[in-house]
C-alpha cells in the first residue's frame, strides 16, 4: 500500500545558476536605462516644486501691499504658467532619494524573511541569503543617507538635525552596521548565523517605525509625500520609473553577489574534500 501520510513539502534551497541569474543581467540593463530616463525626466519633465513666495517690490526694494496690508505676490510667466514662488531645484534629489530609501526597506524585508527561514530550518544557505540581502540593504541605506544629507544641507542649512525620520533612519543604519560587526566578531558559524538572524529581524522591525514616524509625529519637518494630493502626475511618473529602475539594479546586484558567494562556498567545499583525500 502506498504511504498515504502527507510528507512535509521539501523546499529547494536558493541556488546560483537558476532562472533568476539568467534574468539578472537584463534586469541590470533595464535598471540602468530606467534610472537614466528617470534622471532626465526629473530635470526636464517634472515641474520644479515651489518654495517661498516672491513678493512685488518697489524701486527701493520695499514689498508692495494692498489696501488690507497684505503683501502682493510678484507674478512671472515661465513655460506658459504664472509663477510667484522661488523654484526649488534641490527637490530634484527626491527622485532618487525616495526610491533608494524604499529599496533599502525592501532589502531589509527580504533579509528578515531569510533570517526567519534560517532560524526555522538552520540551513546555512538561508543565512547566506540573509547576509547578502543585508549587504544590499546597507548599500542602499548609505545611498539614502548621502542623498538625504545633501538635500538637508541645502534645504535646512544644516548637515544633521535630530528630526524623527532622520533619527529613526540613523538607528536603522546603525543596526545594519551592527549586523556586520557581530558577524565579524563571532567565530562559531552556527552561533554567528543565529545571533545575526536575530539582529536582522530587529533591523526589519525598525522599518515600519521609520516609514510611519512622520505620520505619527506631526511636528516632523521631513516632507510626507505619499498622501492624497502630495504628488502631481509628472512627479509620480518620474518617481515610479526611478523606483522600478532601482529595484532592478538591487535585484541584479543581489544575484551577482549571491552567485559569487556560492562559487566561493563551493570552492571551499572542494578544497576541504581534496584535503581529506
Amino acid at each position, binding site marked *: 500500500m502506498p504511504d498515504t501520510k502527507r510528507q512535509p513539502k521539501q523546499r529547494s534551497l536558493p541556488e546560483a545558476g537558476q532562472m533568476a541569474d539568467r534574468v539578472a543581467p537584463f534586469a541590470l540593463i533595464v535598471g540602468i536605462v530606467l534610472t537614466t530616463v528617470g534622471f532626465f525626466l526629473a530635470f526636464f519633465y517634472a515641474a520644479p516644486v515651489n518654495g517661498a513666495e516672491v513678493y512685488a517690490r518697489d524701486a527701493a526694494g520695499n514689498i508692495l501691499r494692498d489696501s488690507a496690508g497684505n503683501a502682493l505676490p510678484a507674478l512671472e510667466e515661465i513655460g506658459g504658467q504664472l509663477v510667484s514662488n*522661488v523654484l526649488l*531645484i534641490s527637490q530634484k*534629489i527626491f527622485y532618487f532619494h525616495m526610491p533608494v530609501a524604499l529599496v533599502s526597506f525592501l532589502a531589509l524585508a527580504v533579509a528578515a524573511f531569510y533570517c526567519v527561514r534560517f532560524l526555522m530550518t538552520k540551513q546555512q544557505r538561508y543565512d547566506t541569503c540573509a547576509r547578502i540581502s543585508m549587504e544590499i540593504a546597507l548599500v542602499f541605506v548609505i545611498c539614502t543617507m548621502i542623498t538625504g544629507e*545633501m*538635500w538637508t544641507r541645502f534645504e535646512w542649512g544644516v548637515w544633521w538635525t535630530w528630526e524623527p525620520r532622520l533619527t529613526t533612519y540613523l538607528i536603522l543604519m546603525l543596526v545594519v552596521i551592527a549586523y556586520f560587526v557581530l558577524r565579524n566578531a563571532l567565530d562559531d558559524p552556527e552561533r554567528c548565523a543565529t545571533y545575526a538572524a536575530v539582529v536582522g529581524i530587529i533591523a526589519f522591525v525598525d522599518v515600519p517605525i521609520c516609514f510611519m514616524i512622520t505620520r505619527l509625529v506631526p511636528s516632523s519637518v521631513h516632507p510626507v509625500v505619499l498622501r492624497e494630493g502630495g504628488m502631481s502626475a509628472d512627479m509620480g511618473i518620474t518617481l515610479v520609473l526611478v523606483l522600478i529602475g532601482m529595484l532592478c539594479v538591487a535585484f541584479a546586484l543581489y544575484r*551577482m553577489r549571491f552567485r559569487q*558567494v556560492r*562559487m566561493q562556498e563551493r570552492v571551499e567545499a572542494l578544497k576541504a574534500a581534496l584535503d581529506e583525500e
Partner: protein
Amino acid sequence: MNPVLQEIYSTVIPSAPYIIAAYALLWVVLLMYVLFVVRGFKKTEKQIAILEEALAEKEGLNR
C-alpha cells in the same frame, strides 16, 4: 534678468553642487559595491585555478 525672475531662480546655482554631489556619490557607492563583487569573483577564480593545479598534480602522482 528682471529682479523677480532673479529671485525665482535664486536657488538654482547655490543648490547645484549639492544636487551634483548627491547623484554622483549615489552612483559611486553602487559602483564600489560592483567592484567589491567583481574582486570577489577574481579571488574565487584564482582559487579555482590553484585547485585545478593541485588536482592535476595529484593525478600526475597517482599515474
